[in-house]
């Protein structure tokens, strides 16, 4: 063996040794988090910090963090479909379009209070979830991805061509609601609204994950026939994933409508759907903290790298590709079993 080869071998063993070390540190951290006291103190401290944040930072940071919470909600919603149930979906923007337009139309055209539009938004989300879920019941991943992509475009094109959705201009001048007498007109108000939604979405996701329904999703994700043989109604379980994922998106969309006060078909493009999917995959499909991390990175990275100029998305793309090749399971680490 040449010197070069020997050196390479030494380098390789060093790399695996480092990997082992990292994994053991991660396992220790996980052990630490098993302790409920430690876990809840971490939650409490970070919640306090997050509630305090708008008071201490600029409006710009608050705006970006509001966007992060919005993305956390939609990413957790998509994660139920893609991560928990393993149903590849490329048209998720359609679901928050449904929410945004439902609230927007009711407020703008009929003068209904925003808070009353929320239940309708949920109802429309259920219908949308069924609309995509029922025709695709027999489809497996690749075909499903194509149909969901088509669904996303259909919703966008429908919004573009219907009078009630304001065609290409969309809806402009959606009134902002009041919450206990305070009109929601400051960015901080939306920061808190989206933060609360993100927290609720996290709690609901985590409880779903550790439930009978969450397990059923894992079973169909792993092997649909075996799940059916174990007595699981795979049709119902699949539809539940689409419906719940859709509701997450629609509620986020309703709030987006009042935050922006204007929505148009261009707010719900295929690129949007892809960015959300990307956040989920980047952080780690099916792993809640990973998905939150993914949402954070996909919102914050393009902002902090503004200095790089127009190449930043290219760099982002390359980083993502390298990451997916070496870490297909996503950024969030896992305990070794």
């Amino acid at each position, binding site marked *: 063996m040449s010197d070069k080869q020997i050196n390479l071998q030494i380098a390789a063993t060093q790399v695996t040794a480092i990997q082992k070390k990292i994994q053991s540190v991660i396992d220790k951290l996980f052990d630490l988090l098993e302790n409920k006291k430690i876990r809840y103190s971490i939650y409490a401290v970070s919640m306090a910090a997050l509630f305090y944040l708008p008071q201490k930072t600029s409006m710009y940071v608050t705006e970006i963090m509001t966007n992060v919470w919005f993305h956390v909600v939609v990413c957790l919603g998509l994660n139920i479909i893609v991560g928990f149930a393993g149903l590849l979906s490329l048209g998720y923007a359609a679901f928050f379009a449904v929410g945004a337009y439902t609230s927007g139309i009711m407020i703008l055209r009929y003068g209904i209070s925003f808070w009353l539009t929320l239940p309708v938004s949920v109802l429309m989300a259920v219908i949308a979830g069924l609309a995509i879920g029922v025709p695709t019941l027999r489809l497996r991943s690749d075909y499903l991805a194509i149909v969901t992509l088509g669904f996303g475009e259909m919703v966008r094109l429908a919004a573009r061509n219907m009078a009630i959705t304001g065609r290409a201009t969309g809806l402009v001048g959606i009134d902002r609601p009041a919450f206990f007498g305070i009109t929601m007109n400051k960015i901080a108000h939306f920061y808190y609204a989206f933060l609360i939604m993100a927290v609720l979405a996290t709690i609901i996701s985590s409880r779903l994950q550790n439930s*009978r*329904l969450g397990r059923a999703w894992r079973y169909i994700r792993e092997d649909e*026939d*075996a799940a059916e*043989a174990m007595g699981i109604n795979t049709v119902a379980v699949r539809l539940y994933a689409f419906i719940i994922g859709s509701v997450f998106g629609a509620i986020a969309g309703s709030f987006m409508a009042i935050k922006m006060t204007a929505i148009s078909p261009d707010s719900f493009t295929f690129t949007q759907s892809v960015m959300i999917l990307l956040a989920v995959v980047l952080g780690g499909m099916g792993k809640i903290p990973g998905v939150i991390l993914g949402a954070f990175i996909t919102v914050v990275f393009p902002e902090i790298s503004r200095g790089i100029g127009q190449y930043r998305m290219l760099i982002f793309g390359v980083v993502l590709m390298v990451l997916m090749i070496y870490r297909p399971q996503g950024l969030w680490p896992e305990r070794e*079993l």
Partner: protein
Amino acid sequence: MILGIKDLTLRFGGLTAVNHVSFTIEQGSIKSLIGPNGAGKTSLFNCITGFYRAQEGEALFRGDSVMRLKPHRITEMGMARTFQNLRLFKNLTVMENVMSGMHCRTSAGLAGAVLRPPAQRAEEKRIRDVAEECMDFVGILDAKNRIAKNLSYGDQRRVELARALATKPQLLLLDEPGAGLNYDEKVQLIELIRRIRDEKGITVFLIEHDMGLVMEVSEKIFVLDYGTKIAEGTAREVQNNPKVIEAYLGKEEEAAV
């Protein structure tokens, strides 16, 4: 009679995989289905468990027709199965795998998951208890927190059995449970199948290629060749049946050419 099959016929285009097959299975018995490769054994299983739709015939499970039902409904009625090629949830723990069996015996839904009322917590505990009991029964309780795919092949077979048992079946259909097992594991399997019937009172219907195992464990044997039933009876009767000998020897001669 726990299962009654009458004139069951399944065609794939021009190929008749199951051809007017009729038989019954008595409550509490252990019955085997044998036959050369491609005889239609797995296809017959798939018809009974709802995975394939037979074109003709009738299948009655405890008096009710299962012909038009989906597999999960049939499992719910009390018929569980295993697969010829292991179909575990590979990336999940053994515990989670076995818990899947209890799904059709429990009911918590969305509200239960999110609100976690006492009823849901009690149900979760019951699921775990039953899963542990089933893992203990087949002897893999020690491995409960391991990822299924990391287990030895023999242990994975046990997980599949535990998972089927967790559905609390009355009738258990095993598709070549001995395939890929070594001698010791087969001896243990024979004992396990007996215990499933004797201690749990579950009727067992199995497909098996290993004649030793079949003769040892089953009370009645039923032979399929080219989708047609060619013999039925006790181990001795079947062994001496000229049609069966021909089906097996004929195949071997062809294979030798």
